């Protein structure tokens, strides 16, 4: 069933390398026409690499099974028009598009237009917006495009997204593209497993750290003890072990089962985008992965971020950004050399997706080494408490003394924590005229968070947005954070919040159960929004993982802890022990989905229905 791990005695490295790197292409790029190349177009039946582009107002999509081979093991994928990624849809603002989706699978399917504002019946979530598309049926989506930017689309049925159903959706401005770029590439990142996704799920339910091969070991302990001293080595582990939590639980799936793809191409396949020297290149990064957060950089090139989640932001120049499933970033680069590596390492450092920007096909430059795995810190576990050690706050003095030995070993890599909840105290009185001017900081756990469905609660969350997250802190590179994003033109609705909704992101890693407020979807009731109201949503992360939270149908307008508008998003990543807030204008009647975009978290029940009426 699984040929992943070689038996003892055989050379593990060879098979292992092929598995992580994927199959390489035959190096036949030079003769291919066109600017965009499929580097690994070796799977008969499924086109990978260069997604075909479809334009116009009438589009036909066919969902079917088609064979792929990313690792040397032939597998069946679920594809749209036979390609991975699915065709790139280039649509025009103001157009009403008709998209006919025909299902040639043996099971029901669906397509969700991620980030597109449309009537709820067109949103494509089976069981909420419509009944789904039965085998043999054609469903006609029809909606008007009232926005511009980079979006994407994917199946919302079962695990079909993970098995190949994702593609880019670009809405072009009627007035012409305001950003000048000589080249325009979609760079869609995803991940692939040769295993059946539900089998992966069953394994996680049995052993949630099944795919984690970066667990703390006895060998690590002795190494720490010899470099930092025995006491320090013990302290570093004490709280984790006491709480039965793993400091390296960064991604539920890893390179042990995933092959990381860039435009449907393995690292060995090396997707390549071409440019001429002096050109300005726009890269539309889309994270269409089922499970993987990616840390993206192009060694030697600065990236100027101009759009996030399809919405223009004030340009900000960075070396690197992290994004989770569902999020998109558009960046501009101005390459001067002949070739650059597009490097997207998975957050857990178990592998990477990779491609190349080059002046001619076949050029490559070195691929950076994976960064080393960092343990989660106290800030990731306890929020503001974890980073307080350096803070000057008289009220804390008594407590800090006791805290110190627990916090010390972890505090060395904690930037920006002084923006946390504690620092806000002083300004609170001045701001008190309207309590809804900024998000409430009173933590209110749901009563259903005290049972078997959760393994921890955070009482003192961090609220700062300027933390790039675990593994990216103080790495010597300029890393994008949410605090860097500033949507051009401000919020879509000038009104302040009329009320607050507080939802906690919860889970139990040992049971591999994921929920909101400690309740999985099946036991939940919808969140009701009154039509037309402006509401503040507070998402409070009571887990040690980052969750990309996607609200369908309406924008999520991210704000700072002070209540200042930050950015308009469709998917908001909430870091461990973080409390984040955004405003929503409930202008979309109907029923909508709202969930974590990590596939297994979503399917485990970290999912809510929203009713706007």
């Amino acid at each position, binding site marked *: 069933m699984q040929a992943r791990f070689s038996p*003892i005695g055989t050379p593990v490295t060879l098979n292992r390398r092929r598995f992580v790197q994927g199959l390489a292409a035959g190096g036949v790029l030079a003769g291919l026409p066109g600017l965009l190349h499929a580097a690994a177009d070796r799977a008969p039946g499924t086109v990978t690499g260069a997604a075909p582009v479809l334009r116009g107002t009438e589009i036909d999509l066919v969902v079917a099974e088609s064979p792929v081979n990313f690792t040397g093991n032939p597998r069946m994928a679920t594809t749209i028009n036979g390609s991975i990624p699915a065709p790139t849809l280039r649509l025009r603002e103001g157009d009403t598009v008709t998209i006919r989706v025909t299902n040639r699978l043996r099971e029901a399917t669906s397509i969700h237009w991620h980030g597109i504002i449309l009537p709820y019946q067109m949103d494509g*979530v*089976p*069981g909420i917006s419509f*009944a789904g598309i039965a085998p043999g049926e054609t469903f006609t989506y029809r909606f008007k495009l009232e926005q511009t930017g980079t979006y994407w689309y994917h199946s919302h049925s079962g695990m079909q997204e993970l098995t190949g159903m994702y593609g880019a959706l670009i809405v072009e401005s009627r007035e012409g593209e305001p950003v000048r770029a000589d080249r325009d590439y979609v760079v869609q990142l995803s991940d692939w497993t040769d295993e059946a996704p539900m089998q992966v*799920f*069953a*394994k996680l339910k*049995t052993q949630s750290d*099944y795919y984690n*091969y*970066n*667990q703390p*070991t*006895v*060998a690590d302990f002795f190494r720490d003890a010899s470099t930092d001293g025995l006491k320090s080595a013990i302290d570093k582990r*004490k*709280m984790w*072990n*006491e*709480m*039965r939590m793993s400091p390296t639980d960064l991604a539920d799936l890893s390179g042990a089962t995933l092959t990381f793809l860039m435009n449907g191409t393995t690292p060995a396949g090396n997707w390549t985008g071409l440019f001429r020297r002096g050109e300005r290149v726009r890269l539309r990064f889309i994270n269409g992965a089922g499970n993987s957060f990616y840390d993206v950089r192009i060694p030697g090139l600065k990236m100027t971020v101009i759009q996030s989640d399809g919405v223009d932001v004030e340009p900000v120049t960075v070396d690197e950004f992290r994004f989770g499933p569902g999020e998109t970033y558009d960046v501009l680069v101005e390459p001067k050399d002949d070739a650059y590596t597009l490097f997207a390492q998975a957050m857990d450092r178990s592998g990477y997706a990779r491609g190349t920007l080059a002046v001619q096909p076949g050029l490559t430059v070195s691929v950076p080494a994976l960064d080393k795995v960092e343990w989660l810190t106290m800030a990731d576990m306890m929020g503001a*408490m974890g980073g307080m050690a350096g803070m000057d706050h008289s*009220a*804390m003095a008594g*407590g800090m003394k*006791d805290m110190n*030995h627990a916090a010390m070993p972890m505090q060395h890599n904690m930037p920006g924590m002084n923006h946390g*909840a504690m620092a806000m*105290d002083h300004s609170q009185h001045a701001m008190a005229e309207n309590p809804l001017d900024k998000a409430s900081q009173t933590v*209110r*756990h*749901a*009563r*259903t*968070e*005290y*049972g*078997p*469905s959760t*393994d*921890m*609660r955070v*009482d003192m969350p961090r609220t700062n947005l300027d933390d790039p997250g675990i593994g990216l802190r103080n790495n010597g590179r300029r890393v994008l954070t949410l605090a860097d994003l500033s949507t051009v033109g401000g919020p879509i609705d000038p009104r302040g919040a009329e009320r607050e909704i507080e939802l906690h992101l919860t889970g*139990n890693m*040992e*049971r591999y159960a994921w929920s909101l407020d400690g309740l999985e*979807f*099946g036991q939940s*009731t*919808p969140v*009701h929004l009154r039509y037309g109201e402006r509401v503040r949503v507070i998402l409070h992360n009571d887990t040690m993982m980052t969750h990309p939270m996607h609200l369908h149908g309406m924008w999520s307008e991210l704000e700072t802890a002070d209540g200042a508008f930050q950015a308009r998003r469709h998917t908001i990543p909430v870091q461990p022990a973080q409390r984040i807030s955004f405003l929503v204008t409930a202008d979309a*009647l109907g*029923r909508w989905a709202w969930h974590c975009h990590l596939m297994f978290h*979503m*399917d*485990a*029940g970290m*999912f809510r229905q929203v*009713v706007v009426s």
Partner: protein
Amino acid sequence: MNTLSILAASVLVLGAAPSLATAAGAHGQHAMDAAGAQSESGASPMKQAAAPAAMPMGAMDHGDMNMQGGSAPADARDPHAYSGGYTLDSGKYALAGPRQLRLADEHSFGTLLVDRLERVDTRDATSTAFDAQAWFGRDYDRLVVKAEGDYANGRLEEARTELLWGHAIASYWDAQLGLRYDTGEGPDRSWLAFGIQGLAPYWFELDATAYVGNEGRSALRVEAEYELPITQRLVLQPRGEINVYGKKDEANGMGSGLTDATFGLRLRYEVSRQFAPYIGVEWNNKFGQTADLARAEGASTRETRWVAGLRFWF
């Protein structure tokens, strides 16, 4: 030792479960003070949450917060407060008919773990031992089957089979209720079983079950395991087990009181997470009347066992 004291001991052991569950969060009052100082309202809900039962372990001497376990304060937030009376399948805009969207929280999963399937060598004999556990169900309620026993000379020496309903009672703990059936060389015995299984702080896997049989019999069995990863694939697993019986069962070679204790070390190599060969050594000691019965039969009361076997699950 009589049945009553066995049951009392069982209650003590089993009663430790909720304590263990809250242990990790039963202190760190200063953290709560800090939270109170931060909150504008003096009546911080966190303060109430911060008062669980007394610290049972005495092991938690440093400043973590009340992050795990505990019970909800009276004013904890209602998770349905935002529903406005809507449910998943009723109210405006709901699709017709029964709810169609059912996620994995409403699906059943299952697994069979053969924790030990091993050849056992002692000075006097060799035998084959097995210890398996299967479950089927959802996250919080599942059917559990446990089977343990050994064969020697082509005969089943002894076997214990349990059929249990497991119900999650805390983050890391399931309560289990069901039946146990013993068979083998001696007379068969049936028991009612009640126990807890889960993960104690510091990653100790615990399985403690009390049994009540007919003719006034009672028993208690406690098993603990620990997984110590030497590398990502090489795992040392210490394992201990004690058995206590409330009433002498001479036909099965059991005295009343503490009958035996076992401690073992197994070193396994995980070819995959699901398939791991191992070698190990185990020491077993019989005590009290049980030891007397063994001596009377000419058997030894303490044994060193060398084992080699397979751990696998699917």
